[in-house]
């Protein structure tokens, strides 16, 4: 491979001799996104090669660049580099006249910064170039943007980068929900003066000082970051000088804008009619697919067959079919659907709003809605697939049900009549200790048996052929379809009602959405199942790790957070005390207290796993509610708190915060506060002592410095 690279470079340099060096337009494509938004799929295949409407993402990017007149494209690959190289070798990019696609590898790269330092070291960039992520779909007029960048640079040498943004409302579907970008730029020069991407913050702020240089500043909340940047060579040099730059957006832009030493300027270019979007996460995968099917990306639409290896044609209702698609019997293909060649769909099946790859076999009476089914997938009769991604080569046996938002990895086998909960992620990838990726943890993998129940022949599956459930928690909003919680979150944000409504709102929503079983909403079901698990654990004396795994599974299945788990676990731990000693109804508070102490310390490792800094205060309130409901526990509220504190489930800060919040609350005459006063005072005094010791430490430090 590396030899090939060298050859390419040599031929590149000979080409360069023919043209003036400044005439060559170069682009750097980042073949890796350095994140895990598409895990577990990306454990086996790089993101840039994932098919988007049956065409690999990289092809959209390369086609866009080639169509825009870029002559030399460097694809920088990190993870799965060999796959990308192989793909480029085998596709038409290998020998397309006028465009040279060159692969570069940096297997040790962990960040975009590393990759750009790699590009710098290779010394291939001559002049202004385009830096683009390998998963961008666009039909914008790049030459125009380039010209604007050059004009700006003419005016001021320090204009080293022009970022391309697309104007779209803040609720636009192709806007990744994980971003919350506010861009401040000079109204007249479009120079970016402040860049703020902090979804968690409710406010965006700008320093007043900036107004001295820029009398009028535009504040844009309606821009989508397209991840197309027109850069001058200085950008690479800057990355090389600052080895701690990791991300372009987070580090580089932030540093340039806030640095007093560097006088570099960044500018924005806002697209209005044209299309540009990055497939950033699962949600944008879904929305960009829709955009392509609805032809916003023209000329990059399936029936244009721009990769010259497909044969799509468009029929009414946005249905795209390749040649040799077999539709048997009375199967129903409804709107927004794409079907690849050699695919067969059985009688009675219903396919809607979905993309199906090549060589798939879909049985009878299968229902597929809103899903992405890649190549060589077999789906047998009566299966139901809802808003999921199913990767190449998977087999889904008859009557299986794949819940919404699921991701089925490559070559997964799902047995007969299996039901996958919503948002399941299944992969055949194995945890590999040798891999030096520290962020890839073994606990993300949990073996799951999806083989047919009655079919034991498959037991010859050896060690390397296990099916795993992927347990890494996805960030908020990174799912193919919104989780119910997402939409609640949206509502709350829009009506500003604050956090109080969160939980109750969730329950109400759940009730509404689960019309099928109106008796038991998810939250109740979850509560019951966790309770059962704990009770079983107590009776059978199961090891804590097993209980934890089980609860973790439930947590993901029902999409709950750690706080929900704790509020479900704690009552059971305490309640079983009342049931075990229910014969003597008059348990003295002392006995109860001792019992609680024992229980909590016994289960503390489990509790600690689910507790988090942010939710501790809420947890205390939950305990308070629980005590309100159970008269008996009212007296032992303080001991419970104390035990939880002793076992590191809640921190003293949380207790203080709770005490502060409850102070203004006159509802129950400060009953709980009075109860805990002694305890809190004790905590405070302890803290002061430790503070004192800290202070003395500080003094030591100071003296060291003065030396």
């Amino acid at each position, binding site marked *: 491979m590396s030899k090939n690279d060298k050859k390419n470079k040599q031929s590149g340099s000979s080409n360069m001799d023919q043209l003036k060096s400044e005439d060559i337009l170069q682009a750097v494509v980042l073949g890796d996104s350095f994140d895990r938004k598409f895990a577990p799929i990306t454990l086996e295949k790089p993101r840039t090669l994932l098919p988007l409407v049956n065409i690999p993402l990289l092809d959209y990017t390369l086609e866009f660049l080639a169509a825009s007149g870029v002559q030399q494209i460097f694809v920088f690959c990190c993870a799965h580099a060999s796959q990308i190289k192989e793909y480029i070798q085998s596709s038409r990019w290998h020998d397309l006249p006028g465009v040279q696609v060159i692969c570069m590898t940096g297997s040790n790269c962990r960040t975009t910064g590393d990759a750009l330092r790699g590009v710098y070291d290779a010394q291939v960039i001559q002049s202004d170039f385009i830096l683009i992520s390998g998963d961008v779909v666009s039909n914008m007029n790049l030459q125009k943007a380039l010209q604007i960048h050059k004009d700006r640079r003419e005016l001021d040498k320090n204009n080293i980068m022009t970022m391309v943004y697309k104007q779209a409302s803040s609720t636009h579907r192709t806007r990744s929900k994980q971003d919350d970008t506010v861009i401040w730029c000079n109204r007249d020069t479009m120079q970016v003066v402040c860049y703020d991407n902090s979804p968690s913050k409710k406010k*965006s702020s700008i320093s007043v000082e900036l107004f001295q240089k820029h009398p009028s500043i535009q504040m844009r*909340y*309606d821009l989508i970051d397209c991840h197309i940047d027109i850069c001058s060579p200085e950008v690479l040099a800057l990355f090389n000088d600052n080895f701690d730059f990791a991300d372009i957006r987070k580090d580089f832009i932030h540093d340039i804008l806030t640095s007093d030493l560097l006088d570099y300027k960044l500018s924005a270019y806002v697209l209005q009619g044209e299309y540009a979007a990055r497939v950033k996460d699962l949600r944008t995968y879904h929305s960009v697919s829709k955009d392509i099917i609805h032809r916003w990306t023209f000329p990059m639409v399936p029936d244009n067959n721009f990769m010259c290896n497909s044969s799509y044609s468009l029929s009414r209702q946005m249905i795209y079919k390749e040649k040799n698609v077999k539709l048997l019997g009375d199967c129903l293909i409804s709107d927004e659907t794409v079907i690849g060649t050699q695919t067969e769909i059985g009688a009675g099946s219903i396919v809607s709003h979905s993309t199906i790859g090549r060589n798939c076999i879909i049985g009878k009476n299968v229902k597929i809605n809103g899903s992405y089914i890649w190549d060589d997938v077999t789906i047998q009769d009566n299966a139901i697939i809802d808003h999921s991604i199913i990767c190449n080569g998977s087999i889904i046996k008859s009557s299986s049900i794949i819940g919404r938002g699921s991701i089925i990895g490559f070559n997964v086998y799902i047995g007969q009549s299996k039901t996958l909960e919503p948002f399941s992620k299944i992969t055949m990838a194995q945890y590999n200790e040798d891999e030096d990726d520290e962020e890839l943890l073994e606990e993300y993998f949990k073996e799951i048996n999806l083989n047919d129940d009655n079919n034991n022949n498959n037991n010859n599956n050896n060690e390397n052929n296990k099916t795993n459930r992927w347990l890494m928690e996805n960030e908020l909003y990174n799912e193919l379809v919104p989780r119910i919680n997402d939409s609640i979150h949206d509502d709350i*944000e*829009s009506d500003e009602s604050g956090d109080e409504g969160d939980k109750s709102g969730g329950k109400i929503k759940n009730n509404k959405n689960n019309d099928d079983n109106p008796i038991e909403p998810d939250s109740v079901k979850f509560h019951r199942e966790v309770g059962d698990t704990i009770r079983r654990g107590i009776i059978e004396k199961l090891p804590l790790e097993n209980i934890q795994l089980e609860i973790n599974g439930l947590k993901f299945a029902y999409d709950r957070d750690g706080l929900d788990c704790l509020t479900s676990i704690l009552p059971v731990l305490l309640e079983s005390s009342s049931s075990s000693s229910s014969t003597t109804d008059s348990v003295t508070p002392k006995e109860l207290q001792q019992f609680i102490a024992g229980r909590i310390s016994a289960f503390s490792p489990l509790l600690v796993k689910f507790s988090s800094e942010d939710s501790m205060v809420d947890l205390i309130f939950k305990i308070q509610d629980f005590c309100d409901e159970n008269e008996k526990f009212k007296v032992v509220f303080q001991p419970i708190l104390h035990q939880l504190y002793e076992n590191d489930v809640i921190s003293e800060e949380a207790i203080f915060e709770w005490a502060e919040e409850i102070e203004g609350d006159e509802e129950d005459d400060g009953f709980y506060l009075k109860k805990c006063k002694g305890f809190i005072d004790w905590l405070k005094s302890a803290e002061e002592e430790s503070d004192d010791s800290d202070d003395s430490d500080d003094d030591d430090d100071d003296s060291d410095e003065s030396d």
Partner: protein
Amino acid sequence: MTQTQFQVVILATDKASGNSKLEPIDATIPHSLLPIANRPLISYQLEFLEKAGFETKSEPVIIVVNETSQEKIKQYVSEIYKGKIEVEFFVLKDQLATCEILYRIRDKIRLEYFMVLNANLVLEDTFIRQMADLHRKEESSLTVLLKPPTPKVEQKGKGATETSTKQDKLFTDYIALEEKSQKIVMMEPATEVEEDLNFNKSLLKYFPNVTIYTNLQDTQLYIFSRWVLDLIIEDQKEKYPLFFDIKKHLIPYLLSCQIPNIKRKRALPASAFNQNQTLSQTMSSTTSPFDQFSELNAQKNKTIKCFAHLLKKEGYCMNVNTIKNYQQINRDIAKGDLQYLPNEPKSEKNFFIDPTANVTITQVGPQCVIGTSTTLGAKCSVKFSIIGKHCKIGDGVRIENSIIMDHVIIEDRCVINSSIICNDVYIKSGSSTVGQYLTK
């Protein structure tokens, strides 16, 4: 064209003009009577109100004055002013904030809209008309008039900006506009902002593309809808009223009410939500009781709208709140190509000399104004300057780029350059003043 729906309130109190930096020249003269090209400031305001067609027979213009200055201003209006505008004075015995003043005069404001203007403003009447049209057309609750930076001032300012940033802060506002719709989203005086400007994301959702200006000048001319007065009245009834100053409290509050569903400290009165809407709904034939959107619309109507009218570059508008501005407007009016002219007749050579003045024409250069009964000695030269009434200027005096008010006596061979000489000043022979402001 007459404006019958607007009631005008001119705030001519010390405090309202307290934001000005005119010391020492306004020490002896009430702000409203400062001479500008030998005409008191207030005459310009009455002139543009008349030109803009305000109907004041039944609803006179309300001028709010302090007790100390009331006599002089009243005297001017009743004795010297000859225009058609009817004026009613409201004398303030104590120092009140602007919102409280509005509260006091609430019974006098009866029309659908009211316009509040600061006594330091001079502008062309067409802007008022455009602004009034905007206010009515868009069913605005508040419309403000903003002045874009004039390139001239910027050039001059360049050298001075660094030294005078502190002073400028008084007159600088952070103004956020949604350019497409002309809506104003935020207006914060620079004095109220310390380090960071903060924007709530909820605001950003409704106004995703706003531009924040620091170089727009608030002319302190506001048009309010009548319901705003109801809001002030309700607020004043509270134990701790929120609104004192129109600019610092009332306007930011109204602007924040443009975002729907925001928590409001003071409920907006029911009259805030478009009376016109209901009218148009009942008039419109398409509205039926079964209209599925009516509820949705009702929700939408729970917000108010505020607009900004940007002055066009070529029009004239000036807030007389700094000495620099005061000199500038004197020069501008003396040029004689504006809508406003000095009272003195214009001569061919583009200067204005009262017929009773004792002046040899060759002594006076263009763009000068010389008032009644003023005498100039022999071999004087006057360039780009304004000389008031009843002044006595001795022989061989050179006056350039200066403003000389009434009853000033200047003895022989003085040199006066870029100065302001206030009423009744006596300058001994042979003195020279450059860039000074002299009062008695």
